[in-house]
């Protein structure tokens, strides 16, 4: 029998329900695994051993007493949660000094739904401070390492969410994706990461970075694990008014179908490193050999996407982060004796470098003299991009591209040049700007480093993403879990 911690979410769920092993046995193995491995990976900010074991015993009792009928659809599955998603009574820090002692009084809707379905929340996962970054090097708790090679970055900002799943420290996880923060680390760590349609999954309880772009998404070892979690977390929520009504409760199913029409986005493949584009072209060949209709296509507004994305993200961030005044939540530094503005300026200087830089640029682009020059234009670019995509989706079921234009790189390689770091988000920001769903699945390896294949579908067409992703996954057979030989 394989080690329990290496099982997929589906296998764990089936095993526990069939009583092949107990939830408690499984959780104990997971906790031991985290103990052994996380010293090197640093995916977790905090592990909830006590809560996880209690929940496991409860699940075992339910199965023993009621024969498994009343147990939830995610029973026993260990899910790690990015530390910018609120967990009731459990510290939620955003990897920032500014929230280092924040204990939320409520659960985010997604967390509540996971718990209601008997998933086991195993702990909180590392990220770039306030989800601003693409490598998870910018966390107050130190960087997360890539399980495939610990000298390399795990991607970001949900680096802990992807690395923990790849390193078999939990079966699945939740991340958040504002400009690629789920898909980038999923690509770098060779796991499956989904950014759902904007308005598909409630953001209530997600500490906001850029509201018009943010979306919570699951990460798993397989496409069907991700589907399973989506079935539990998606749908209407009174606490998030951006959820679209006509699509209340989607049920995603396993039905790989052939004759998928696939467009490969030329600009994104051409802009990638040769090793990466080679891998994406082979993916297209594979699809073609499976009776899919594949062709290259063009997305002209790609050229302006990054400028539009960073204008909007930083503008919204500067306004969102205005709330951190260290009065209602924050670190230990009392306001006694301080003048109003001086106090706020003093405590807020504890934001990290990247966060401060984004607040300043955001304040600049929103200032009245420049509003029309930047923010308004950026919002217009979104309209053009959306129109262009609508036309493409009349012709294709899905579009494919690299998730990241480059292979994972070593620590410190890009950290001193913020603009250079921004550039690597070019392939992922498209989906956030247009609000469409996109998934990153393991596409192959080059020099022993993972390459992610990105699939994008039209709004609310997650099922089409899954169809294409399942077809590729079941045929390409890409090796999934790093043998942790270190």
């Amino acid at each position, binding site marked *: 029998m394989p080690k329990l911690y290496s099982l997929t979410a589906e296998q764990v769920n089936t095993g526990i329900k069939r009583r092949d092993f107990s939830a408690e046995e499984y959780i104990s193995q997971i906790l031991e695994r985290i103990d052994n491995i996380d010293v090197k990976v640093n995916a977790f900010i905090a592990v909830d051993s006590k809560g996880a074991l209690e929940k496991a015993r409860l699940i075992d009792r339910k199965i023993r007493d009621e024969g498994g009928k009343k147990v939830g659809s995610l029973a026993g599955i260990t899910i790690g949660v990015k530390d910018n998603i609120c967990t*009731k009574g459990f510290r939620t820090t955003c990897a920032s000094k500014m929230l280092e*002692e924040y*204990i939320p*009084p*409520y659960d985010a809707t997604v967390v509540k739904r996971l718990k209601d379905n008997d998933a086991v929340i195993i702990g909180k996962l590392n990220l770039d401070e306030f989800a601003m970054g693409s490598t998870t090097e910018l966390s107050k708790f130190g960087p997360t390492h890539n399980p495939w090679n610990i000298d390399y970055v795990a991607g970001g900002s949900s680096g802990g969410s992807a690395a923990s799943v790849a390193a078999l420290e939990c079966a699945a996880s939740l991340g958040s994706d504002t400009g690629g923060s789920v898909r980038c680390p999923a690509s770098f760590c060779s796991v499956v990461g989904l950014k759902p349609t904007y308005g598909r999954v409630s953001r209530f309880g997600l500490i906001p970075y850029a509201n018009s772009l943010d979306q919570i998404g699951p990460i798993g070892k397989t496409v069907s694990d991700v589907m399973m979690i989506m079935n539990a977390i998606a749908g209407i929520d*009174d606490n998030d*008014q*951006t959820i*679209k*009504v006509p699509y209340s409760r989607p049920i995603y199913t396993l039905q790989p179908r052939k004759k998928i029409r696939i467009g490969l986005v030329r600009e994104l493949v051409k802009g990638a490193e040769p090793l990466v584009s080679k891998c994406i072209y082979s993916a297209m060949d594979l699809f073609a050999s499976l009776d899919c209709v594949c062709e290259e296509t063009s997305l002209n507004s790609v*050229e*302006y996407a*990054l*400028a539009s994305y*960073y*204008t909007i993200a930083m503008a919204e961030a*500067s306004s969102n982060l*205005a709330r951190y*005044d260290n*009065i*209602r*939540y*924050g670190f*230990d530094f*009392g*306001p*006694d004796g*301080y*003048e*109003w*503005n*001086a*106090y706020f*300026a003093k405590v*807020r*200087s504890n*934001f990290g470098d990247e966060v*401060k*830089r984004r*607040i*300043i*640029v955001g*304040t*600049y*682009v929103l*200032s009245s003299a420049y509003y029309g*020059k*930047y923010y308004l*234009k*950026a*919002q*217009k*670019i*979104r*309209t*053009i991009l*959306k129109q262009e995509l609508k036309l493409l989706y009349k012709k294709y079921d899905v579009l494919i591209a690299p998730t990241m234009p480059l292979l994972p790189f070593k620590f410190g390689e890009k950290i001193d040049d*913020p*603009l250079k770091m*921004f550039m690597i988000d070019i392939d992922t920001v498209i989906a956030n700007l247009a609000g469409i769903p996109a998934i990153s699945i393991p596409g192959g390896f080059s020099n022993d480093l993972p390459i992610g294949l990105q699939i994008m579908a039209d709004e609310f067409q997650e099922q089409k993403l899954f169809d294409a992703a399942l077809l590729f996954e079941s045929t390409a057979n890409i090796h999934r879990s790093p043998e942790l030989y270190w």
Partner: protein
Amino acid sequence: MVSRDTIKYLGRLSRLELTEEELVKYESQIEEIIKYLDKLDSVSLSEIEPIHQEKNFCELREDNTKAFEHNTLESVRNRKDDFVKGPRIL
């Protein structure tokens, strides 16, 4: 052109105390970022509407008050009785 004074001023607007060292570093970095965002100027957008939320007002929930069942003051460190204590205004 983004000068050091501009950055200082933006810092003041966004309530961020910036050290001399930070000002020096940010000056060139932010200049470079803004120059990149200027790319938005190179496309003609006068005919285009900015993106907007597609939801209608009637689809939004009623604007009624609802009790928040959790004790929000519990985690506030700076308190006096049932008040939140802040810095002085004058």
